[in-house]
């Protein structure tokens, strides 16, 4: 098969949009349903995230006065494109993309693009709430990226390569455990969930940084978030769950691990209240910093 075709298939079909979008909606529904059940409610119907997406596609787009039309409409597209391209690099079983040297670096870069898009979306909207949300998002990304990046870089150090397939095939050891915990530490903030949801504190700053977005662009931002959930959970599974020689078993294990991680993160989000920005920042630089130091030390000791 031609290399260009394999990239296109990985982006558009598997593990790209065609499968990631329904999987992301499934994960969103699972989180909402779990929160509802934990609060003693019935919760949304199974197709709710899909209905939300389709409804937003059929709505009018209101562009605020004085906002540059091009960048306003381009940001959600870039966000979805980047997060899907990142997912296409993850070596899930059956992914047609060949492993490149240094694709870990590309993956980490692409994973920052949706965050950047959200920050820019808040600033270009000319809404004071959007700008506050963007500022918080940007500051929080400085905090949670410490443990997040260290977890992946420690695994690259352990595997001796910046290749995703090498990370996946690295012999299981203590570093996996430590780096996995460090990764999980960063996960709630990356998913914008309680207690690190200060950037989308709807009771305080009305909404998150897409406050001025409506219609299809908002739908794309929601889709980007759904695909990002799949990306984060599957990245955790691929890097930190030991692989078996059978691809189909691997796939099932990865999906189950993803749902399990989401369940744990949702449980934490339901049980905790929102931290202030300074508290969240301090948490990540103190506890995230300690976890990062221990993880890096473990890779160097061996």
């Amino acid at each position, binding site marked *: 098969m031609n290399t260009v075709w394999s990239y296109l298939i990985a982006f558009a079909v598997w593990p790209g949009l065609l499968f990631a979008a329904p999987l992301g909606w499934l994960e969103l529904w699972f989180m909402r349903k779990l929160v509802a059940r934990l609060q003693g*409610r*019935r919760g949304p119907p199974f197709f709710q995230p899909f209905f939300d997406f389709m*409804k937003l596609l059929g709505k*009018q787009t209101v562009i605020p006065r004085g906002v540059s039309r091009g960048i306003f409409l381009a940001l959600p597209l870039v966000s979805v494109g980047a997060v899907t391209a990142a997912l296409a690099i993850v070596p899930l079983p059956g992914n047609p993309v060949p492993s490149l040297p240094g694709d870990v670096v590309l993956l980490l870069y692409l994973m920052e693009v949706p965050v950047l898009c959200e920050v820019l979306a808040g600033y270009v909207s000319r809404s004071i709430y959007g700008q506050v949300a963007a500022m918080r998002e940007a500051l929080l990304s400085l905090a949670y990226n410490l443990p997040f990046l260290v977890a992946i870089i420690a695994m690259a150090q352990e595997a001796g390569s910046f290749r995703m397939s090498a990370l996946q095939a690295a012999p299981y050891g203590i570093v996996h455990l430590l780096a996995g915990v460090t990764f999980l530490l960063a996960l709630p903030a990356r998913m914008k969930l309680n207690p690190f949801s200060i950037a989308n504190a709807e009771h305080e700053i009305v*909404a998150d940084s897409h406050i001025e977005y409506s219609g299809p662009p908002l739908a794309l931002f929601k889709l980007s978030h759904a695909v990002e959930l799949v990306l984060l959970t599957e990245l955790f599974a691929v890097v930190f769950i030991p692989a078996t020689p059978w691809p189909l078993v691997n796939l099932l294990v990865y999906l189950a691990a993803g749902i399990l991680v989401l369940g744990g993160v949702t449980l934490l989000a339901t049980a905790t209240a929102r931290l202030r920005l300074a508290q969240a920042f301090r948490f990540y630089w103190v506890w995230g910093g300690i976890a990062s130091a221990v993880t890096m030390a473990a890779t160097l000791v061996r």
Partner: protein
Amino acid sequence: MNLIERVVAISRRRSPWICRLNAGSCNGCDIEITPLLSPRYDAEQLGVELHGTPKHADIVLISGTLTLRSREAILDIYAQVPNPKAVVALGSCPASGNVFAGSPLVLSESLDSVVPVDVWVPGCPPRPQAILDGIARAARLLEDGATKSQLQNWQGRLS
């Protein structure tokens, strides 16, 4: 109506996002909205989400006596809601001014003279079940393309 239009129409009924607008209410109606999101009534079963910004809303819940100052705000916020949209008037106040009718600072008119109202929910305050029923009726109107704003401007529809 092709398949995608049909799916979008169904989605409008299944995913009504609401936004509250207090136009001079005593807060009674607004307090009756909060139980909708609680375990007892759980509006999320119907896909209802409460949003703070009119840009994300499909249905605007307007409560309270219309005052001289809130008229402009209602028009402004109504214009910010992207089409297609529905308006639900909560309680007796938007309909008639209720006990405040005739006061010097109160616009003694029905809300219908300011923005097109699709569903009236009577009561002072209305019961949460009645508000939920009003939202469900407005969502059904959105599916049928029968809200007053949809009938007024056809370009708001997908077709």
